[in-house]
């Protein structure tokens, strides 16, 4: 298996080609509607992916808000490329031992799915030929690009797709590796290493969708498939392995098809709507009722190869259905799932006889109220079925939450790029590289080793700090005098455990807030056990740490108050204490903690409890209680 990655990371620098802030906003004012059509580049050829998107005939609505301007609306020429973002990309080039270009030339990459108001994404190659080492293996870095992020899709209707402009133009660095990764887990590790490197610049944006990976996967005899826009790092492995499985299953189907001499016959599909006039249920009946065609595509030699195959969930039928869905149909019905869908055995027999099919032959049925759409769909299905005899067609696929992927569009080629003439080329003089080289950030591996020795924390914990992107916060807070272990636990455990907000955005407390919480805990104002509650209170709207502590009622138990609370509980159980001695500690600790409710630190409570038990026992004996617990 060969896997290559494209890691995309949003930068915290303001937008790439205008001076809007790089922020998302749900505040919207007006909207406008546009149509896009593919255009040709320097060589006057239209890209296949662009032509495909245009063939869908969508119009696009764009919602505008406070963080966009006429540049994002494609109503004004772009401003010069953000020098700050270019510095970040060049810094990464240096960190990756890559060769920066001598002059950056901004390109237009044609994208007519509406995600860019202009119909193209501005992108520039900044450096090539780098390398990164992960677990002792050297991985090639093919390219480091700087590009603008696309508009955010809000919803999709049958004829209109709605986007919001806030995300459009946020700078992305795109780091592409060579196809030298061999497994899903390895892909994830390389992605993590690159992610940590970008975060080391201190200019990586955080939050949902700030990091997105494209996975290029192929297996021996298969074809490069691009899985686009994976947002969850931990799912990379699953997608990669899943794609390998899909290609293996489809190759097995291909071998079987070839053995049978299967082929998709040329020629028009047969309209069998007349046969379906009588059926009253299922997806085919509705179209037939609306007077649309029911198109049948014979697939000689395909019988039994369209449905599920032993040992895999992948099936050719699903691949064919994805083609129908890509042009707006809800799906199709194939012969391996019949009888069913309202098609009786008798009707099935009539269809087969109408099409003149033998036992080994399969077929596909497509119905739609629009004859044109049905014909477009069946043409695509026929192409896809034909490709199944050849092997795996190259595709771009969308990742789905369940770990599977879905056909999205053909793979784009080089015909989609032409120069962005509104931006003059940007020379990269040696002086600029010298300046950046003199201020390179520490590489993740070096930082890991340093933090480990400096703070005496476990390697695993330090790894979570560095690769989780919170090492900067860790160093700032420990430099302010907070205990390293407590800071680390707060950053890698307590903060990430706070549930995301209802709008899906992650809770990100400020360093000041974290410092105040740590101070409250170290001064004994709240117990360490109370920290998660304070964080949750902050996340759900408390304006500051003081009010969060007040909301949770964690405050107000003084050391004296704790002593008397513990004393009361122990004395209430005095007979049990006398009977069990030091063994009484554990059950009593539970009772005490219930009443303390995180208002004091656990260790302090334990000390107080030991003292109280000792006092009771001291009235009869002098043995130290609870030792070792």
């Amino acid at each position, binding site marked *: 298996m060969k896997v290559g990655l494209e890691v995309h990371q949003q930068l915290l620098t303001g937008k790439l080609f205008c001076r809007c802030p790089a922020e998302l906003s749900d505040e919207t004012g007006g909207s*406008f509607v546009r149509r896009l059509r593919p255009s040709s580049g320097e060589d006057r050829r239209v890209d296949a992916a662009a032509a495909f998107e245009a063939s869908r005939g969508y119009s696009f609505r764009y919602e505008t808000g406070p963080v966009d301007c006429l540049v994002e609306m494609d109503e004004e020429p772009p401003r010069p490329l953000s020098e700050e973002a270019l510095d970040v990309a060049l810094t990464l080039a240096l960190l990756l031992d890559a060769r920066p*270009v001598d*002059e950056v030339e901004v390109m237009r990459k044609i994208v007519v799915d509406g995600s860019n108001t202009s119909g193209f994404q501005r992108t520039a190659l900044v450096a090539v030929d780098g390398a990164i080492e992960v677990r002792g293996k050297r991985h090639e870095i093919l390219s480091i690009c700087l590009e603008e992020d696309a508009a955010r899709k809000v919803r999709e209707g049958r004829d209109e797709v709605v986007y919001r402009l806030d995300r459009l133009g946020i700078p992305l660095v795109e780091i592409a590796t060579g196809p030298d990764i061999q497994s899903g887990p390895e892909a994830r590790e390389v992605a993590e290493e690159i992610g940590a490197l970008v975060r080391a610049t201190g200019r990586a944006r955080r939050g949902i969708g700030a990091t997105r990976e494209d996975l290029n996967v192929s297996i021996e005899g298969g074809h490069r498939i691009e899985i686009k826009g994976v947002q969850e790092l931990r799912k990379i492995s699953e997608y990669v392995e899943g794609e390998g499985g899909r290609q293996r299953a489809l190759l097995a189907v291909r071998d079987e098809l070839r053995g049978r001499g299967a082929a998709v016959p040329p020629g028009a599909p047969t309209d069998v709507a007349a046969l379906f006039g009588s059926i009253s249920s299922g997806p085919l009946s509705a179209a037939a009722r609306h007077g649309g065609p029911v198109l049948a595509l014979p697939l000689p030699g395909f019988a039994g190869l369209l449905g599920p195959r032993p040992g895999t969930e992948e099936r050719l039928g699903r691949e064919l259905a994805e083609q129908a869905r890509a042009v707006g149909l809800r799906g199709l019905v194939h012969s391996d799932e019949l009888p069913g869908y309202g098609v009786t055995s008798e009707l099935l027999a009539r269809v087969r006889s109408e099409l003149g099919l033998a036992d080994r032959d399969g077929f596909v049925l497509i119905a739609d109220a629009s004859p044109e759409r049905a014909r477009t769909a069946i043409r695509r299905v026929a192409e896809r079925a034909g490709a199944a005899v050849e092997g795996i067609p190259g595709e771009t696929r969308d990742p789905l939450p369940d770990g599977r992927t879905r056909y999205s569009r053909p793979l784009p080629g080089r015909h989609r790029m032409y120069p962005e003439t509104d931006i003059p080329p940007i020379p990269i003089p040696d002086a600029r590289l010298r300046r950046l080289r003199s201020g390179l950030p520490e590489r993740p591996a070096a930082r890991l080793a340093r933090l480990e020795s400096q703070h005496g924390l476990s390697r695993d914990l330090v790894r979570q700090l560095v690769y989780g992107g919170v090492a900067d916060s860790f160093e700032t807070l420990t430099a302010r005098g907070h205990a390293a272990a407590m800071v680390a636990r707060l950053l890698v455990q307590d903060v990430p455990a706070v549930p995301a907000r209802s709008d899906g955005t992650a809770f990100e407390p400020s360093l000041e807030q974290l410092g105040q919480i740590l101070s409250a805990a170290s001064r004994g104002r709240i117990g360490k056990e109370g920290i998660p509650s304070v964080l949750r209170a902050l996340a759900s709207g408390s304006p500051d740490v003081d009010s969060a502590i007040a909301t949770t009622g964690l405050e107000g138990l003084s050391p004296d108050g704790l002593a008397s609370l513990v004393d009361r509980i122990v004395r209430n159980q005095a007979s049990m204490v006398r009977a069990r001695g030091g063994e009484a500690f554990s059950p009593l600790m539970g009772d005490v903690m219930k009443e303390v409710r995180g208002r004091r630190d656990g260790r302090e409570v334990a000390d107080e409890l030991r003292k109280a038990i000792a006092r009771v026992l001291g009235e009869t004996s002098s043995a130290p209680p609870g030792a070792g617990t």
Partner: protein
Amino acid sequence: MARTESGASSDPLTVLRGLPSGQRVEIRDASGHAWNGAIVPSHELSGSRIVSLKLESGYNVGVAIDASTAVRVVGAPPSARSEPVPAGRASVEGDPGGWITLLTTGGTIASRVDYETGGVRPVSDERDILAFYPELEGSGAVRVIPVFDRLSEDIGPADWLVLAQRVVDAFRAGARGVVIAHGTDTLGFTAAGLSFLLTDLPGPVVLVGAQRSPDRPSSDGPSNIEAAAAVARDRRLGEVVVVMHAGLSDDRFAVHRGTWVRKMHSSRRDAFESRNGPPLGSVHGGTVHLLPLVRPPSAGPPRVDGPIDENAGLLWFYPGLTVARARAFAAGVRGVVVAGTGLGHVRSELIDWVRSVTAEGVVVAMTTQCLEGGADPYVYATGRELLRAGALYLDDLLPETAYAKLVWALGHADDPGRIKALLTQDRAGEFLRRHRAEGEA
């Protein structure tokens, strides 16, 4: 020194510059790094020793060439580009719906990116136009006639006459309407000029442009030209209009009278606005809506009402404008439109200048440089003195419309009194004289 395949030594930059665009090369720098790609034209603002390569990935990069660069030519010279064959045109003969004529003059609407210079370059090839705009023929036949091949800043009054003659020719040949694709920078001037030069129009003359070049997927050209074609087929209209986006969306277009319209924004799609009054109509969902105040078609025959005289000027008053500079500007002209401040004012020392040039027979016509409203001499003393000094007040004419009218009027009379009479007379519905608060007619 570069080592070429022939073994000859020369400056590697000279070697590379001598290769055809599209030639694949390997360029190896002193550090040993090799760039592999095809030579593409460099941006005109590229560094002097930069060669642009298109890499296999599709990206262009600039590679610095110095004496130590090694160049290796890879593979055969590129073969000639194959041009796509545009769709064939429908026959205009015998079309029962009537055909329209498209006159092209260049401009963004008929431009494509010039990868050599980095700018947009006009195209005049009829096949290119129809390949760009297949929607033109969606609602009927179109005859395409290239007239100029220029950006609009290079189109002037003499060209208005040429265009006017082509419009008349098109109507005489049987066109139902005429669309003129024109650059947007001076589109308002040309629209005004044609409004005065064309009389007895039997159908619409529609100027249209684009604010985004047609090589961009988001170009407004296709939808603008489709809307312009719909207006050109409308049988209720017999005047010169401009059709462009009415807002930011690609689904609504405004029909502006040629003498009321001005480019109000340097880049927005909806840059064109009717000043002082509403647009004459709109196009939405393929349907043309027109207000009752449109000028109906004439029984004809259409005619070019020339000649013109270009000895005219348009002077934008500013507070530091001295008599000497104004005098230098007016040297040799027969008429000057002054875009004055407010209701049509200039500093008091210029009043004497007005008095002296009008005494020499030069027509001085006052307009306002305000973006809305008209000129009026009676409200302030300056206006009254300018009037007494011989200035002519042109009410609510836009300065550029006044200039176009002056060019036309100078061609029609020698006597300043006669010229002033022509200027104040309504010829093309150019005077609005009624300004509603909400832009209603």
